[in-house]
């Protein structure tokens, strides 16, 4: 749609609207009729919006709203392409269909964008793009706006029950076994993976027969360099921890703008656990063993990609 065409359409729209109102139509109906003058793309958008406002949109049983996610996607794509210049490798290790459990390292203190970027990486680079369902720290669901934004773009409260149900429905699930310990690690330890919880993700993978795809993300460590934590502020906000960065909270909302570091994401070879069978989920030693093996895989991939990336910002 070029500018002159749009301007012409708008002018005709106003003319028709005025004529309609003069003919005694109510303004809403006059606007609907005058809309014929508008370019098709704009009409489609208005139509879609009207349908959504009338409740005609789809959310799955988890509250994932694909249309909403698609609308938010360009912003994430901008971050992926221009802000963080993400390079993704090994994307074909992600299954094109059926269940799969992506396990990744976690960092980024204030707002862990790593989940978002892994998701965009798969949508952008995979021959058969698909949405991922990240398990999100529960605290996010206590917060106004973030709570429904998260679920609408595919986030699900972190619970083994949710992971299992999603995998049984053949979704692509993403977990961060480091959890809050990962996002809240001190800047000096930024590339070192924390303990991997209690191996719950291995248990879920065993029970559902889902392959585990270890993923390493480098770059999220620098977006909000954590200088320290404020326990007092965290208590006021009810947050699990509250990082202090060079810009947050000193610059207020501006402090929420992440630094433009350079990122790499690598999907490692999938780990198929189906040979063990679902009963093996009871075997605690096996859980810790596999969990530790996957942690090591991701750790060495993080170091490799760190070297490949070179400078953090340029």
């Amino acid at each position: 749609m070029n500018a002159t065409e749009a301007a012409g359409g708008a002018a005709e729209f106003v003319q028709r609207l005025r004529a309609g109102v003069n003919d005694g139509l109510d303004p809403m109906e006059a606007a609907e009729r005058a809309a014929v003058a508008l370019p098709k793309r704009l009409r489609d958008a208005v139509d879609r919006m009207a349908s959504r406002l009338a409740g005609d949109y789809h959310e799955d049983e988890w509250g994932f709203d694909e249309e909403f996610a698609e609308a938010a996607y360009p912003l994430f794509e901008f971050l992926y392409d221009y802000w963080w210049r993400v390079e993704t490798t090994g994307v074909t290790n992600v299954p094109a269909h059926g269940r799969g459990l992506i396990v990744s390292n976690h960092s980024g203190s204030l707002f862990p964008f790593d989940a978002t970027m892994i998701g965009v990486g798969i949508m952008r680079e995979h021959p058969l793009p698909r949405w991922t369902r990240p398990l999100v720290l529960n605290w996010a669901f206590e917060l106004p706006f973030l709570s429904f934004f998260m679920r609408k773009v595919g986030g699900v409260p972190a619970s083994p029950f949710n992971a299992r149900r999603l995998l049984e429905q053949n979704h692509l699930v993403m977990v961060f076994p480091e959890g809050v310990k990962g996002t809240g690690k001190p800047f000096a330890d930024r590339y070192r993976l924390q303990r991997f919880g209690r191996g719950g993700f291995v248990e879920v993978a065993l029970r559902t027969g889902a392959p585990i795809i270890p993923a390493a993300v480098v770059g999220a460590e620098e977006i909000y360099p954590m200088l320290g934590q404020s326990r007092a502020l965290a208590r006021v906000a009810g947050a699990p921890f509250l990082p202090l960065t060079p810009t947050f909270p000193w610059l207020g909302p501006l402090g929420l703008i992440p630094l433009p570091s350079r990122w790499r994401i690598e999907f490692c070879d999938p780990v198929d656990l189906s040979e063990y069978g679902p009963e093996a989920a009871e075997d605690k030693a096996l859980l810790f063993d596999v969990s530790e093996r996957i942690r090591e895989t991701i750790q060495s991939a993080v170091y490799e990609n760190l070297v490949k990336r070179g400078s953090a910002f340029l």
Partner: protein
Amino acid sequence: MAAGGNRVVITGVASHWGSELARALARDPSVSYIAGVDVRPPEDDLERTEFIEADIRNPVISRILPGLDPDVLVHCGIVWYPEPDKPARSLHDINVIGTLQLLAAAEKCERLRAVVARGSAAIYGSEAAAPSFFTEDMARRYPLKTRFQRDIGELESYFDNFARRQGGITCTMLRFQPEIGPGLDQPLVSYLNLPVVPTQLGFDPRLQLIHAEDATGALAAAVANPVRGAVNVAPDGTISLTKILRLAGRPTLPIPHPVAAMLLGRLGRQLGAADLYSDGVLLLRYGRGCDNRRLKEEVGYRPRFDAEATVRDFVAKSGASRRLVSSVHPGHLARRAGSPL
């Protein structure tokens, strides 16, 4: 099944759910006798149902119930909201003491082979961090926060104890998600029918409302095929509050949630929710989803309406919604222009 058919006794028969169940059972030829117990007679005449005026809180029930000689006892006397002759302050007594008395009476019924109770999914609570779908073994994962939750928790423990001691009796605790239907006089329905609906700013909970028809269907199915333990009664899928209100064409008034808690509480009392308003505030902030596989696979009841269809049916039957803006495509407009308005 005993020769000569099932004898069924329903407590709380004057309530909407009790009456509807009695109607459904009256159509079932395998049920030979239906008795309904309550403190007041049902509003409409129920054919084939003998009404017995009694209060389950009164020990007299121990003499009445064995005389009725039931095969199946259906406890519909668990009250969610105040009803005529059941004011807010008596809910705790009716729910907890009433259930205790009723179970004591049930121990004396010789033929009794099943007890089915119409309980509530409120026992799971509404929590931000909760699993998106509660299964039956997840009750009491979180502290019971509200008065109603504690009552439900207490009566469920009595119920579990009874089930453990009376191994020969199958005890089914049905955990219902809130029910909606156009004719239902209930706080949640009144809430959805408000001219402007207050919501909590920045929250859009996932809800499961059960269609009145499915609620009765599930109860009747459990009477015909009781299973041991708890069973969730919930539709397939979930629906968000925003979507419900948009489908219903209701304007909303989002209020920051610390203030909304107070305001919704006051509103809840006006809508007749009594003590249940705090459950309502949490439900309308964090929502709740229940897994219904046990209902479908073991009880053998498949809800006819999923979460969205329930709401669409409710909206269609309680007056059509009006779209603020309809389609702006020429074809659609032509269709509209051609239709008599």
